[in-house]
């Protein structure tokens, strides 16, 4: 029940803002805030990563650094290559060429499971809750270095029972924080879309990651649950984790991100503080097209969309 507390239909609609006042981390970069600028303490450094699908260049990132201990947002219009970049960095896809390092160690060519073991854990745009496993089993699956995950040691429960109990306690603690503890024995398939997002995030935390990569954590989540998700993301930072997330919701980006990286057509076109970066002409070009201020006549549908997008961008500056 507690998990649904925020879903009371009688409650007045609230804007999706975190309940706590986010403490912004500043002074992350060295020199001008321009695409590919150096960071004081980068955790992830990407160099010349390129991925083409036939004739289409989906990702062509020359150089970008993700600051440690901060929340970084990766934004950009649809088709900018954000999710493809995520897949490349986490080993779910192979680039045509390029190198990238995590905590100083090269990840190029490393399979996804080893990337995850190094502490760089991701979630998916379309949630991947393991439906016919219980919520608790979903959580336990996230724990690292389990003795009982070897087929032969699995036969001897006394070898892994103690570790299993520890993981179970840790999972229960996380589930309580995410308000899913009352659901622990239900199939994950019985959770709502938002609860699955929460479960996926909680599951990722079971492995004590250093970098959490969230692919559109807010997609398909109702506003009431958005609020608690925002709080959880801010908590990750206060616990010392680094967060990199893809998001379309500009409100959320402005509220919680310490740094914003803007992609368009596969390239990083702008970087900076969330409030500054929105004023960057390259960002407005990316979202609205280069000729947004010229009258090109008829296309009234596109015109309305442009107005909407401009309002979105300028909203936060008021």
């Amino acid at each position, binding site marked *: 029940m507690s998990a649904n507390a925020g879903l009371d239909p009688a409650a007045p609609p609230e804007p999706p803002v975190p309940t706590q006042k986010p403490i912004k981390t500043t002074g992350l970069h060295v020199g001008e805030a321009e695409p590919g600028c150096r960071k004081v303490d980068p955790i992830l450094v990407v160099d010349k990563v390129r991925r083409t699908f036939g004739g289409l260049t989906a990702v062509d990132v020359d150089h970008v650094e993700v600051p440690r201990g901060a929340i970084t947002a990766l934004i950009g219009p649809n088709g900018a290559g954000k999710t493809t970049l995520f897949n490349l960095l986490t080993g*779910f896809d192979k680039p045509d060429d390029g190198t990238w390092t995590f905590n100083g160690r090269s990840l190029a060519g490393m399979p996804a499971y080893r990337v995850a073991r190094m502490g760089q854990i991701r979630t*998916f745009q379309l949630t991947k809750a*393991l439906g*016919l496993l219980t919520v608790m089993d979903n959580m336990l699956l996230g724990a690292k270095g*389990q003795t*009982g*995950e070897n087929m032969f040691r699995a036969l001897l429960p006394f070898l892994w029972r103690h570790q*299993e109990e520890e993981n179970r306690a840790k999972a229960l603690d996380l589930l309580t924080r995410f308000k899913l503890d009352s659901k622990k024995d239900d199939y994950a398939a019985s959770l709502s879309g938002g609860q699955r997002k929460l479960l996926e995030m909680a599951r990722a935390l079971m492995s004590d990651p250093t970098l959490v990569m969230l692919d559109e954590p807010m997609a398909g989540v109702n506003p009431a649950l958005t609020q608690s998700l925002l709080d959880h993301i801010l908590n990750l930072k206060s616990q010392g984790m680094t967060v990199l997330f893809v998001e379309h919701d500009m409100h959320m980006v402005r509220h919680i991100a310490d740094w914003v990286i803007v992609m368009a057509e596969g390239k990083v076109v702008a970087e900076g503080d969330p409030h500054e970066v929105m004023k960057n002409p390259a960002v407005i070009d990316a979202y609205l097209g280069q000729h947004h201020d010229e009258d090109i006549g008829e296309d009234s549908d596109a015109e309305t969309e442009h107005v909407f997008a401009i309002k979105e961008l300028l909203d936060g500056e008021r």
Partner: protein
Amino acid sequence: MDWGAIFNNAAVELISPTTAAYALAALGLAVHFGYTGLLNFGQAGFMALGAYGYAISILTFGFPVWGAFLVGIGASIVFALILGIPTLRLRADYLAIVTIAAAEIVRLLFTTNTFASVTGSANGLSGYKTEFAALNPLAEGSYGFGPFENNAYDTWLRIVAWSIVILAALFVWQVMRSPWGRVIKGIREDEDAVRALGKNVYAYKMQSLILGGVFGTIAGMIFALPRAVVPSNYQTTLTFFIYAILLLGGAATVLGPIIGSMIFWVLLSFFSGFISRAVEAGWLPFMTTIQGGQLRFILVGVAIMLIVIFRPQGVFGNKKELAFVR
């Protein structure tokens, strides 16, 4: 109509070695399909490797029983590696196509005349039972009661066959409630999610393929011991009978394949006895006894259809799971 004989013959199948063999092969498929989500349509190939591996080792190379047993298992591990290395990185349906083709290749290799001196070609192999019978600790005589009364060799075979089935079932039960089983079931649900949590999905799928394949291989040996090894026994239909048993009992269960196999064989024997006597008694005037022999498969098919329609999770399956089938 001799109902007593019909029921007696049906009861014999309850603990026959063939039932044990099908139960074990279905347990292997439960590991593949029910728990891991691997679509293995080549279980007949694994069984053929077990039967031929055992028979050829004894007849051609004069190996002892345990040596022949290990040869069969070794052959199935190699077979699983050959199947798995190229296909387990791909989507599940590719494994289905490759396994069904590979099982046919295995059967045709055993059928071809080129290797007739070793495989006996289409006539198959026989005369490999003495080594197994020599291990029999039971004295001559008959054991059991009623329909379950057998001579010393048949009793020995039943004891060994069902002991192996029970050990295999305990193995699967224990391993599936461990963290290893949790990873395996996670892979069935969504392998990318499991990969993102730092598990080597490819290695787990390979272990599952080998484990279920080895069960199929041992099942092939048990299947061969009461009869001769004939290549036509290992056609694709064998795989589909085993799938029928698995779905009948419940795909992701331990007891399901075993009870499913018992139900399948008792029904098959009952219908076969009933139809042949009904034809003799003139109840089915439009039918010859040969046609009657085929009708039993139709009736078993109908019985299985009814179970799948009215109890789709199988006898032991969890009804709750079906509520969320995508």
